């Protein structure tokens, strides 16, 4: 308690600032909008060169006592062009019309618990307006960020609708804790983990896909310490602030959006046909000294059936989205409401994501000093999922490798099951059946709601309080009938049907209270102070039940299960208590200084480290405001920025610090046993961040440049520290190890042509170097998939980035023997796991986005490219699809056709010999350049002339066509370099393991405003 009292004392002092000007006459007037003549409440009216001022009331009226003589009044409001009006001694009524500010410099930037104008920003903050992604049919808000902001690396893990998306801001900072940024929607930190509790083969689903991106007004990405320190122990991975649309003080506008299109896989895998496969398999068997005919491989017989399995499970999906929204208000009440339906068929059979959402935002001015508001954002989703990736019983994954010698349906038109006569045995499962038969439905519900009040205690001192909730619920309703792998093949699991039902609920309650104070001294010194506290409580509940041995496949719910043999329930909670403050100061708009601090206490930290302090300091110099720059007319803005500070990552899991005992059972008797040893010193992972940047604008903002360079070091990494096992424990959770991220970011915006044709270009580039600096000990940690001949596909080791690929180094194929040659680094004359080495990493050298927009009369054209350069992608699929004959249970990729056949052949694919695993050891043979340039979106729109639509009482009509992922430039030999089978993994990113490629979308849409 003592700790905070000083804090609050400060705010009381602030409250004590009172202006006491000597009033000699009174000026009254009304401030209105130039656009529609409506009254503007809350506009600041200040006498220039003094602290005398007021703000307009709900009717836009003001009354101000001013000194006698000629004075200058300054009218300012965030988002509006500031006006200065000279008032002679005889004038007593001044009415003002204010216009929205057009320039980038005065645009509003939301900075955590406050907002400011772009020109005053000294942190690294990227703002993205909704126009940037409105024509891209993104499912979720995270997807909307892809390619739009420097420093922000977004990868969609696969083409599954509603699927997981990896978001990294300025690199990976953690090995064990989460690397995802903090997503804040209208002040509420939202749950962003997977909805589902069951693994579907690497691919997770994504809670953020349940929030409708069409309700978003803007996104701000906070990237450096000065911007993020206000989020303290949750800021290390960056913060994405999402602001939803709100009503404006004008006449009600109703907007209807209709979008409809088709989706298709960007590229299909190229597999051998049955005849080619028979020939290759015969060769492999013959090379092993066996008779292929005895194995049933007979040309002309075995290949009598030639099924294109990929074709059998893929389709063109239909994507449709409908939205209707209304926004408007008057000088007292403003509102925004919307309803949205989105329905996306996956390209895999039976895969579909449907979402219904609604939003209502209200703002009401209760009095001159009190504003109240509310926001409700509700969505329900239904995700019909299919298995994939490393699951043998996946759909796309099963289809690629399935032998073409078999058909999905028998002569009676029935699907072959896992034990059917006439179908390939293990590990082949009929992928068509695996798509059509199971029921994997995940029902999601998300409610974001909040109420807030804003009261002006005295002029320029405002108190804002907000109560919010983020509620997430998921129910997974699953049944795998006896014709599927789990439901039928594995007697120990399903045998006769397998049903699962999982529920999970998590909610977060947040209360934040903020005081803000603005002070201007002689119009020279400007202070913006903020002081606040926040209490966050989160709770999670889950239950699951599993049943098997169903009477028949007509009974698919667990009520009918013969055995209900597994079930459970769980509960978890955590709390965060914070105090924070911020002071921003500028001297004559030239020198800017910022000090931000957050003091966070988390239930996740040990008793000795319960509270952490996260300070940051920043400074800026607007060179363009200096006298000597006046002569340099083409530079309209030039600002140098620098910041230094600390942020943390508190997503280290609950109760890791606590010595705990868990419950056990022994033949019906219940007991306890120690689970963890306590570590009262366990704390957050800490990131020290330094950033310097420059903002420049030329020719009145025609051309703008933002460049940043940063150097971040994360230490106190959460790590299981090995301790002597004789203690009875394997490890203790400790804070050891460090990771660095250094990089540069560049954003260019240009208005190339601004006449009848307007052509704008945006380019952003990021270069990030990630490196593991120290680990708990020098041992290499192996991660990713286990691999033949070398242990694992990925490694974490000092001096290398996260996402480092491990393996043998493939030196080529011996033209004499056709065998693979690997580097024998320890020179012991044989290839063993000791010859494993670093073979590359998944981190790009450069990534970014390139966006062009051209408008001419009613036409608008957008062309948006996104790229990654220098990253490696592990084509782990080829360990199965170009397996050099290790087995003959899988179809092979067309590139297998160029394998070594005869002495003297020079090729990169070893010879095929059944059972020879040596030639298929995990090596750099499977590692490829994953660089790509992708035409992420191209859209062409036409806005009908107003005189046409006016006749039918419409205010505007726009029709457009949009295509995503239409074209990709890459040397990657797999289907798509933009995949990651272990969705969300930090240590094993960029692995393509039967992962469904991205989809391309072609869509038509119309937007009608009433």
């Amino acid at each position, binding site marked *: 308690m003592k700790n905070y009292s000083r804090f609050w004392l400060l705010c009381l002092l602030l409250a004590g600032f009172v202006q006491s000007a000597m009033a000699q006459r009174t000026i009254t007037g009304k401030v209105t909008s130039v656009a529609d003549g409506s009254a503007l409440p809350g506009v600041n009216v200040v006498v220039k060169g003094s602290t005398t001022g007021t703000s307009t009331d709900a009717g836009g009226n003001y009354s101000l006592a001013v000194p006698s003589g000629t004075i200058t009044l300054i009218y300012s409001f965030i988002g509006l062009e500031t006006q200065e009006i000279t008032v002679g001694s005889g004038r007593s009524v001044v009415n003002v019309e204010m216009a929205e500010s057009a320039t980038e410099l005065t645009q509003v930037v939301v900075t955590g618990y406050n907002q400011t104008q772009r020109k005053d920003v000294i942190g690294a903050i990227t703002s993205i307006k909704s126009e940037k992604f409105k024509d891209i049919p993104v499912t979720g808000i995270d997807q909307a960020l892809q390619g739009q902001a420097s420093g922000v690396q977004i990868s969609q893990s696969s083409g599954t609708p509603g699927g997981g998306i990896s978001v990294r801001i300025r690199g990976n900072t953690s090995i064990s804790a989460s690397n995802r940024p903090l997503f804040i929607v209208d002040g509420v930190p939202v749950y962003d983990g997977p909805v589902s509790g069951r693994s579907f083969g690497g691919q997770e689903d994504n809670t953020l896909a349940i929030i409708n991106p069409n309700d978003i007004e803007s996104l701000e990405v906070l990237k450096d310490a000065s911007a993020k320190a206000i989020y303290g122990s949750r800021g290390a991975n960056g913060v994405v602030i999402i602001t939803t649309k709100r009503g404006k003080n004008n006449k009600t506008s109703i907007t209807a959006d209709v979008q409809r299109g088709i989706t298709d896989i960007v590229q299909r895998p190229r597999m051998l046909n049955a005849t080619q496969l028979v020939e290759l398999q015969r060769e492999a068997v013959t090379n092993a000294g066996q008779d292929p005919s005895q194995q049933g491989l007979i040309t002309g017989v075995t290949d009598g059936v030639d099924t294109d399995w990929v074709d059998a499970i893929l389709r063109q999906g239909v994507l449709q989205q409908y939205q209707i929204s209304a926004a408007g208000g008057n000088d007292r009440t403003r509102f925004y409401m919307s309803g949205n339906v989105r329905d996306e068929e996956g390209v895999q059979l039976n895969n579909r994501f449907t979402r219904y959402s609604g939003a209502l935002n209200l703002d009401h001015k209760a009095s001159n000093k009190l504003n109240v508001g509310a926001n409700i954002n509700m969505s329900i989703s239904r995700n019909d999922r299919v298995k994939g990736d490393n699951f043998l019983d996946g759909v796309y994954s099963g289809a690629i490798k399935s032998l073409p010698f078999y058909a999905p349906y028998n002569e009676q038109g029935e699907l072959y099951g896992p034990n059917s006569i006439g179908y390939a045995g293990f590990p082949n499962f009929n992928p068509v059946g695996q798509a059509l038969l199971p029921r994997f439905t995940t029902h999601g519900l998300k409610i974001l709601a909040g109420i807030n009040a804003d009261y002006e205690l005295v002029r320029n001192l405002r108190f804002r309080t907000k109560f919010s909730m983020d509620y997430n619920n998921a129910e997974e309703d699953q049944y795998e009938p006896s014709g599927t792998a789990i439901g039928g093949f594995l007697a120990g699991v399903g045998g006769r049907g397998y049903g699962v039902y999982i529920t999970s609920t998590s909610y977060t309650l947040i209360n934040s209270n903020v005081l803000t104070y603005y002070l201007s001294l002689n119009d020279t010194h400007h202070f913006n102070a903020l002081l606040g506290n926040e209490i966050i409580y989160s709770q999670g509940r889950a239950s699951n039940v599993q049943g098997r041995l169903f009477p028949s496949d007509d009974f698919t719910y667990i009520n009918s299960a013969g055995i209900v043999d597994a079930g459970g329930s769980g509960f978890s909670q955590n709390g965060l208590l914070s105090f924070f403050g911020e002071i921003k100061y500028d001297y004559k708009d030239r020198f800017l200084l910022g000090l931000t601090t957050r003091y966070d206490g988390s239930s996740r930290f040990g008793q000795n480290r319960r509270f952490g302090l996260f300070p940051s300091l920043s400074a800026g110099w607007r060179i363009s405001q200096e006298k000597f720059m006046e002569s340099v007319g083409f530079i309209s803005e030039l600002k140098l920025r620098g910041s230094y500070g600390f942020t943390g990552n508190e997503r280290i899991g609950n109760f890791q610090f606590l010595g705990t005992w868990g419950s056990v059972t022994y033949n019906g008797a*219940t007991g306890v046993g120690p689970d963890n040893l306590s570590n009262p010193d366990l704390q957050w992972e800490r990131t020290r961040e330094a950033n310097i940047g420059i903002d420049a604008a030329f020719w009145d903002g025609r051309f703008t440049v933002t460049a940043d360079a940063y150097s971040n070091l994360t230490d106190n990494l959460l790590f299981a520290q090995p301790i002597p096992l004789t203690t009875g424990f394997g490890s203790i959770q400790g804070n050891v190890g460090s990771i660095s991220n250094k990089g540069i970011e560049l954003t260019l915006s240009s208005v190339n042509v601004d006449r009848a044709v307007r052509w704008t270009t945006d380019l952003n580039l990021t270069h990030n170097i990630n490196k593991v600096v120290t680990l708990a000990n020098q041992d290499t940690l192996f991660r990713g998939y286990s691999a033949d001949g070398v242990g694992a596909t990925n490694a974490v080791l000092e001096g290398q980035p996260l996402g480092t690929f491990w393996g043998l180094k493939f030196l080529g194929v011996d033209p004499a023997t056709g065998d693979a040659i690997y580097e024998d680094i320890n020179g012991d004359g044989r290839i063993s796991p000791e010859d494993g080495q670093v073979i590359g990493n998944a981190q790009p050298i450069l990534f970014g986005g390139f966006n062009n927009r051209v408008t001419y009369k009613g036409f608008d054209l957008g062309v948006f490219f996104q790229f990654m350069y220098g990253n490696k992608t592990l084509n782990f699929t080829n360990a199965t699809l170009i397996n050099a004959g290790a087995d003959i249970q899988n179809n092979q990729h067309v590139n297998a056709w160029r394998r070594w056949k005869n002495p003297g052949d020079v090729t990169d694919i070893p010879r095929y010999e059944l059972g020879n695993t040596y030639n298929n050891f995990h090596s750099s043979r499977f590692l490829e350049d994953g660089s790509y340039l992708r035409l992420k979106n191209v859209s062409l729109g036409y806005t009908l002339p107003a005189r046409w639509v006016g006749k039918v009482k419409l205010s505007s009509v726009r029709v457009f066509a949009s295509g995503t992922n239409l074209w990709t430039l890459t040397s990657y030999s797999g289907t798509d370099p933009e995949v990651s089978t272990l969705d969300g993994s930090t240590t094993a990113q960029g692995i393509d393991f039967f992962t469904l490629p991205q989809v391309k979308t072609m869509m038509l849409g119309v937007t009608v405003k009433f």
Partner: protein
Amino acid sequence: MKHIVRNKFSLSLIAGMLSLAACTNQLNVEPVNTIDAGAAVATSGDVEALLVGAYDALGTTDVYGGNLQRDAELLGDNGEIFFDGTFVAPDEIFRKSMLVNNSQSSETWLDSYRTINIANNVLANLDVVTSGIRDRVEGEAKFIRGSLFFELVRVYGKAWGDGTPASNPGIPLILTPTTEITEEANVSRNSVAEVYAQAIQDLTDAEAKLPAANGFFATKAAAAGMLSRIYMMQERYADAANAATRVINSGRYSLVAAGDVFDLRVNQNGFNTAEDIFAIQITDQDGVNSLNTFYGAAEFGGRGDILIEDAHLDLYEADDLRGTLFYEGDNGGIYTSKWLNQYGNIKVMRLAEMYLTRAEANFRTNASVGASPAEDINLIRVRAGLAPVSAANLTLAGILSERRLELAFEGHLIHDLKRTKSNVGSLPYNSPKLIFPIPQREMDANANLQQNEGY
């Protein structure tokens, strides 16, 4: 100014309320599926729950859940079985070529010490246990701890008969519970003799304090039986015969019919027979029978990793009922039926062993404690459907052969070979290859440990 004052007041009020709420409960959220270790042991009931936890830990796969027994057979085998599995660790053990990073070596080490730590927690909190059951609780904890010290020392240390036990490194003796990590956690290895002495002391205490009947938990006889094993390793035959006699004379156990010794049912919860002195309890809800996992064919829930070779099958006489305890799996391999039921109990000790032990001990000392060697051996032989042997025809080799056939695949092989100083194939009984390495991971974490010879 009045206006201002009112605002000041409301602000301080707000500040006060917030801070109050903060201090009281915001950060003291409690875990739910686990409990704070500091609050775990307060009542007698807590200690009893802890004791159940110790049994649960004792029954994990890496301890008496089967791997300890499996590894004794793999390490001692000379062509009677074949390890056909893909797991590296048991394969290295089977081939007598363990590496320092063998995962089973570290799992056995960890899970045994984990169990010992729970037992130590029980022993450190005996003062809160209700006096009426305190002796029993102490006896059970000491049975568990003493048994594991004995198991560990014979896995990680040289055999008692190999060199000087007083100077051969054994394993660290941990006698107090771990509450925090300090420099003292970096323990050293006690000598083989010290570990044996501690195990004997624990088990002697246990035998004195345990009741004769105690459900499926440890009993007086279980402690006595474990002592007989220790004495046999130490070649203290008279003590071994006496200990075995105490078990036999307790009258609580009896030999069952040949077909009832092992659980030949499928997929049903395990049970103890009248012959079982101590067994790990397995049900379809709880526990894993790791011997089924490795010895059982796929159709009975196992991995089918351990195949029985003709070299073993040929050891049985034609009429030996024990020779029928084998079956052919769907894959054509021959498997033992002893671990057929995947939910069957794991027999750690059964009465037949006591007769075999007493017979051998009496034979070696030319004594007849309790009964003559021939009488004891013939109890086993007759039950197996074989003709009795006369005292004149009874040899030590015959007794050992009977022991091998009766107790095959139950975890005795390597230990019997070591105490009888018999070769394993071409390896002498004291080969370093027949001793587990101290886990490399443990060597890395604790600089005070000394690695075994040959690693």
